[in-house]
C-alpha cells in the first residue's frame, strides 16, 4: 500500500536532523497558522499563489532562492565545522550523514539557490526592460515557478523522511546505481531535479520567446539592454542543455527502477557515458548561471558610473561567443579519466578560449568606469568585489584547463575553491547586486545602505578567509568530500577556513538584518519616482512597484538607452513627455494552474521515490486534468479600464514632475 514507506525511514535516533527539521516544521506551521488566523490567506492566494504577473513570480523565485541559500549555507557550516573537528577524529557527523550534507549542499545551491535567484531577477526585470506587459506565456511561467518549488520541497522532505543522495551533487554511476546506493537518496535527487528541471526548461522557452518576439515597438536586437542579451543567451543555453540533463537522469532512473543497463557495471553499461552527458549539460549550466550575472553587472556598473556601457556591441559578441563555446568544453571536467593527449589538449585549449570572452567583458566594464562619476552604492560595491574576485577565479579556472596542472589539482580543495570563487564571486555577487539594485523596483523602497555595505564587506572578507585556505590545502593534496582526515599538514588550513566561515556567517546575518531594518524604515527609504538610482533602461520608466500592466502606454524605443534619452529630453526641456492617450489594457487572468499542477507533481514525485504506484497514477492524472481544465478555459483575460490606467499613470507623472522641478544635476 505504501511502497517502501514505513516508520523506520524517519531517523528518530539521529537528534541533529530531527531537531533541525522539527524547528523548520514548527516555523512553517507557525507562519501558516498566522496566515490563516489573521485572514491573510485569501490575499496570498489571490495576489501571489495564483498570480501570473512576471513581477510577482520573480519575487517568489527570489524568496525561494533566499530560503534555499540559507539551507545550503547551513549545510556549508556543517561541512566546514565537521572537517575542523575531524582531524584524526570522527567529528560529529557520521559518514552517511556527512555525505548527504555535501550532496544536498551542491544540489540545493545550484538548482534551488543560484538558479531561482537568477531566474527570479530575469522574471522581474526582463519584461520591464523590453518595455512589454508580461512574458510570452504568463501561466506557464507560474507553472515553472511552482515546479521549481516542488523540487526544493522534495529535497527538504528527504531531511525527515528517508535520506538524501550520498553521491555528490552529480550522482556518478556506478556509485549511484542500486548496487551501491540501494536507498531512496538518489531517487530523491533524481525526481527533485527532474521536476524542477521541467520548470527550468519551460522558463527557457518562455524567455527565448519573450525576448525574440515581444520587444517594445522600435526596439531592435541591438537596442536591447545588456541584461536582456545575457538573459537571452542563458535561456538559449537552457533550451539546448536542459534536455540533455533530463535524458541523462531519465536513463539513470531507468537503471534504478527497471534494471536497465545504461550506466551499470554489468551487461554493457558504460559509466563514462553518464559522465560525458552530465557535463555536456553541466558546463553550459555554469554559463546559464553566470551570464545573467554578467548582465546585472553591466547594468549596475553603467548606472552607477553615470555612463553608457562601454563597447556594447563587443559585449554582445562576447556573450554569444561564450554561449556557443560553452558547449565545446565539457571534457575538462574529466581530464584525469585517461582520454589521451590529443583529446585533453583540444578540450584544454577550447576551455581557455572561453576566457577570451570573459576577459573582454572585464575590460569593457573597466572602461565603462573610465570617465564616469562613480557612486559607491551597495550594488556597485558587489560589482567591484566581483571584478576583482572573478579575475582570480578565472585565473585558477584557466589553470585547471591546463591538463598537466589539472592532473595535480582535480578533485582537490583547490578545485572546490576555484568553483566557489567563480560561483560566489560571479553568480552570487551578481545576484546580490541585482537584489539591492532592483529591490526598490519590486517593493517601492530601497534597502538600507549601511547594513548592505556591512554585509558586502563581511561576505567579501569571509569569502577570502574561507577559500584562500582551501586553495592552499588543495595544493597540499587534500581532496574534497572527506568526512575525516589524517594528514597533519592540512589541519591548520582547515581550521582557518572554518574561522573564515564565521565571518561569512556574520555577512549572512547582516543581510537578514538589512532586510528587516529596511522593511521597518520603509517610509524613509521610499522610492517615490520609480527611478531611485538615476537609471538608464526602461524598468526605471515605470513606478515602483510597477502596476500590473507595467506601462500605461508601451514606450516607443529609439537608440540603445531608451529611458536615458527620454529622461535627458525631459531635463533639457524641463518638462515631461506629453501624456499618452490612455486606453483600456487587457491582462491575463490569474490562474491556480501552476500551484495545482505542482501539488500533483509533488504527490507524484514523492510516490515515485517511495514506489507507491497508485499514488503515482493519482499525481499524474491530477496534473494532466489540471492542464486540461486550463486548456478549456473560457475567459483568459480581463480588462483594466482606461480611467484606472490614467489614474495610476498620472500619480507617477506628478511624482516625476516634482522630481524634475527639484533636479539639480547636469543637464544636457
Amino acid at each position: 500500500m505504501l511502497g517502501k514507506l514505513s516508520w523506520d525511514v524517519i531517523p528518530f535516533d539521529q537528534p541533529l536532523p530531527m531537531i533541525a527539521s522539527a524547528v523548520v516544521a514548527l516555523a512553517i506551521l507557525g507562519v501558516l497558522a498566522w496566515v490563516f488566523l489573521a485572514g491573510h490567506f485569501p490575499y496570498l492566494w489571490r495576489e501571489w499563489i495564483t498570480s501570473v504577473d512576471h513581477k510577482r513570480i520573480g519575487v517568489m523565485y527570489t524568496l525561494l532562492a533566499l530560503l534555499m541559500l540559507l539551507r545550503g549555507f547551513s549545510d556549508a557550516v556543517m561541512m566546514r565545522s565537521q572537517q575542523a573537528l575531524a582531524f584524526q577524529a570522527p567529528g560529529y557527523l557520521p559518514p552517511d550523514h556527512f555525505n548527504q550534507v555535501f550532496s544536498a549542499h551542491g544540489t540545493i545551491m545550484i538548482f534551488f539557490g543560484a538558479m531561482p535567484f537568477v531566474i527570479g531577477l530575469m522574471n522581474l526585470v526582463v519584461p520591464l526592460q523590453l518595455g512589454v506587459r508580461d512574458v510570452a506565456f504568463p501561466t506557464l511561467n507560474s507553472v515553472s515557478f511552482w515546479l521549481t518549488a516542488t523540487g526544493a520541497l522534495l529535497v527538504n522532505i528527504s531531511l525527515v523522511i528517508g535520506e538524501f543522495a550520498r553521491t555528490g551533487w552529480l550522482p556518478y554511476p556506478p556509485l549511484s546505481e542500486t548496487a551501491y546506493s540501494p536507498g531512496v537518496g538518489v531517487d530523491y535527487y533524481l525526481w527533485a531535479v527532474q521536476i524542477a528541471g521541467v520548470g527550468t526548461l519551460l522558463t527557457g522557452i518562455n524567455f527565448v520567446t519573450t525576448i525574440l518576439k515581444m520587444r517594445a515597438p522600435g526596439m531592435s536586437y541591438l537596442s536591447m539592454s545588456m541584461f536582456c542579451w545575457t538573459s537571452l543567451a542563458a535561456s538559449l543555453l537552457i533550451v539546448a542543455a536542459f534536455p540533455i540533463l533530463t535524458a541523462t537522469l531519465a536513463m539513470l532512473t531507468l537503471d534504478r527502477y527497471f534494471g536497465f543497463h545504461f550506466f551499470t557495471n554489468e551487461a554493457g553499461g558504460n559509466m563514462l557515458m553518464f559522465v560525458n552527458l552530465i557535463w555536456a549539460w553541466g558546463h553550459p549550466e555554469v554559463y546559464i548561471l553566470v551570464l545573467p550575472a554578467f548582465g546585472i553587472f553591466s547594468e549596475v556598473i553603467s548606472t552607477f558610473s553615470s555612463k553608457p556601457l562601454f563597447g556594447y556591441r563587443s559585449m554582445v559578441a562576447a556573450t554569444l561567443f561564450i554561449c556557443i563555446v560553452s558547449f565545446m568544453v565539457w571534457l575538462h571536467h574529466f581530464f584525469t579519466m585517461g582520454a589521451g593527449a590529443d583529446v585533453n589538449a583540444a578540450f584544454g585549449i577550447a576551455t581557455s578560449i572561453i576566457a577570451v570572452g570573459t576577459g573582454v567583458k572585464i575590460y569593457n566594464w573597466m572602461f565603462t568606469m573610465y570617465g564616469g562619476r562613480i557612486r559607491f552604492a551597495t550594488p556597485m560595491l558587489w560589482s567591484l568585489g566581483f571584478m576583482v574576485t572573478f579575475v582570480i577565479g578565472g585565473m585558477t579556472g584557466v589553470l585547471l584547463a591546463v591538463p598537466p596542472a589539472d592532473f595535480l589539482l582535480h578533485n582537490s580543495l583547490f578545485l572546490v575553491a576555484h568553483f566557489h570563487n567563480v560561483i560566489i564571486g560571479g553568480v552570487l555577487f551578481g545576484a546580490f547586486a541585482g537584489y539591492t539594485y532592483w529591490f526598490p523596483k519590486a517593493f517601492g523602497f530601497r534597502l538600507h545602505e549601511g547594513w548592505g555595505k556591512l554585509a558586502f564587506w563581511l561576505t567579501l572578507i569571509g569569502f577570502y578567509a574561507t577559500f584562500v585556505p582551501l586553495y592552499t590545502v588543495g595544493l597540499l593534496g587534500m581532496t574534497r568530500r572527506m568526512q575525516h582526515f589524517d594528514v597533519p599538514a592540512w589541519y591548520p588550513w582547515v581550521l582557518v577556513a572554518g574561522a573564515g566561515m564565521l565571518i561569512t556567517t556574520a555577512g549572512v546575518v547582516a543581510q537578514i538584518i538589512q532586510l528587516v531594518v529596511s522593511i521597518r524604515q520603509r517610509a524613509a527609504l521610499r522610492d517615490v519616482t520609480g527611478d531611485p538610482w538615476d537609471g538608464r533602461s526602461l524598468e526605471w520608466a515605470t513606478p515602483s512597484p510597477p502596476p500590473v500592466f507595467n506601462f500605461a502606454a508601451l514606450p516607443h524605443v529609439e537608440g540603445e538607452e531608451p529611458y536615458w534619452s527620454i529622461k535627458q529630453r525631459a531635463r533639457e526641456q524641463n518638462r515631461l513627455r506629453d501624456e499618452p492617450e490612455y486606453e483600456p489594457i487587457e491582462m491575463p487572468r490569474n490562474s491556480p494552474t501552476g500551484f495545482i499542477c505542482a501539488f500533483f507533481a509533488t504527490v507524484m514525485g514523492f510516490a515515485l521515490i517511495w514506489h507507491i504506484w497508485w499514488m503515482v497514477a493519482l499525481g499524474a492524472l491530477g496534473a494532466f486534468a489540471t492542464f486540461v481544465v486550463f486548456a478549456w478555459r473560457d475567459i483568459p483575460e480581463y480588462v483594466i479600464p482606461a480611467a484606472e490606467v490614467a489614474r495610476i499613470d498620472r500619480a507617477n507623472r506628478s511624482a516625476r514632475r516634482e522630481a524634475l522641478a527639484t533636479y539639480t544635476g547636469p543637464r544636457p
Partner: protein
Amino acid sequence: MLLRAIVRNCAVLGRVGATTLLAGLLAGCQGGVLDPHGPVGAAQRTILLNSVAIMLAIVIPTIVATLGFAWWFRETNTRARYLPEWAYSGRIELVVWSIPILVILFLSGIIWIGSHDLDPMKPLDSQQQPLEVQVVSLDWKWLFIYPEQNVASINRLVVPAGRPVHFSLTSASVMNAFFVPQLGGMIYTMNGMTTQLHLQADQQGEFYGRSAHFSGDGFPGMQFVLHAVAVDAFDAFVNSARSQGQALDRASYQELARQSLDVPPSTYRSVEPDLFHEIATQGVPPAPGPQAGRPEPSVSPKTGG
C-alpha cells in the same frame, strides 16, 4: 605622538604578519603538489607555476587598474574628467580583444605540448625497465599487485626509488582516483576499464597517497603510504611478503571485495595469475556493495533494503 606610536606599531605588526604569512606559505608547500619528488610531479609543477606566472602578468595589472579606475573616477573627485557619452573606442576594443587572445594563444602552446609530454600513458625516459604494478580500488581499500614478483599488498605501496613504475589501474566497483600528490598527477580507476600511469620517485622516502574521487562512506580511509626504498630494501619487502600471509585467489579476492573501512596494510604471499585482467574485464563479477541482511559498519540502517 599617539598617532605616530599607532603607525609604528602597525608597521611592526604588518611586518610580523607578512613574515608569518610567507613562512606559513612556505611551510604549506611541504608535502603537497608544489613539493614534488619525482620527474612527473616536477614537470607538472613547472607547468602549473609557469601558467600562473603568465596569467598573473595580466591579472595583477587588471585588478590594479580596476580599483584604480574606480577610485579615481569616484563621484567626489573633482579633478577626474567626466565623459558622459564616451562608450566606444576602436583602438581600445582592439587591445581589449588582443590581450586575452595573445595570452590564450601562448597558453594553448603550453597546453598542447604539456598534454603530450605529460600524457599519463607515456613511458618515462629511463635506463631502467619500469616496475609493473597493478592497482585495484576496492570498497574501501587499495590492492596493489606486483605481477612480476607475484605478491600483492593492501594499502601500502613499496617501490624502488629511482626506477620508473608503470601502473595499470582498474576498479572492483565504483570510481576512484589514484593519487600520490608528491609524485605526480592522478588517474581514475573504473570498473571494466584499465587506465595507465607512469610515475617515479627520485629519492627514498614515504609519500602519502589516496583516492581523489569520492567513492562512498569509507572514502576518507582510502589512503596509503608509498614507500620509495633502495633496491635491496625492495627485494627484502618482496621476500618478506612471499613468506607470510594468505594467497590471493578468487575466493580470498571475493572476501576482500566486500565493503570494509580503514583497512590496515597487509600483504599476500602469492597472486592468482591474470587476476587483474579478470577484474578489469569483469571475468570476476564487480564487487557487491552493501549487502542486505548482513550487518555492515558503513551502511545506514535506513537503507538496509
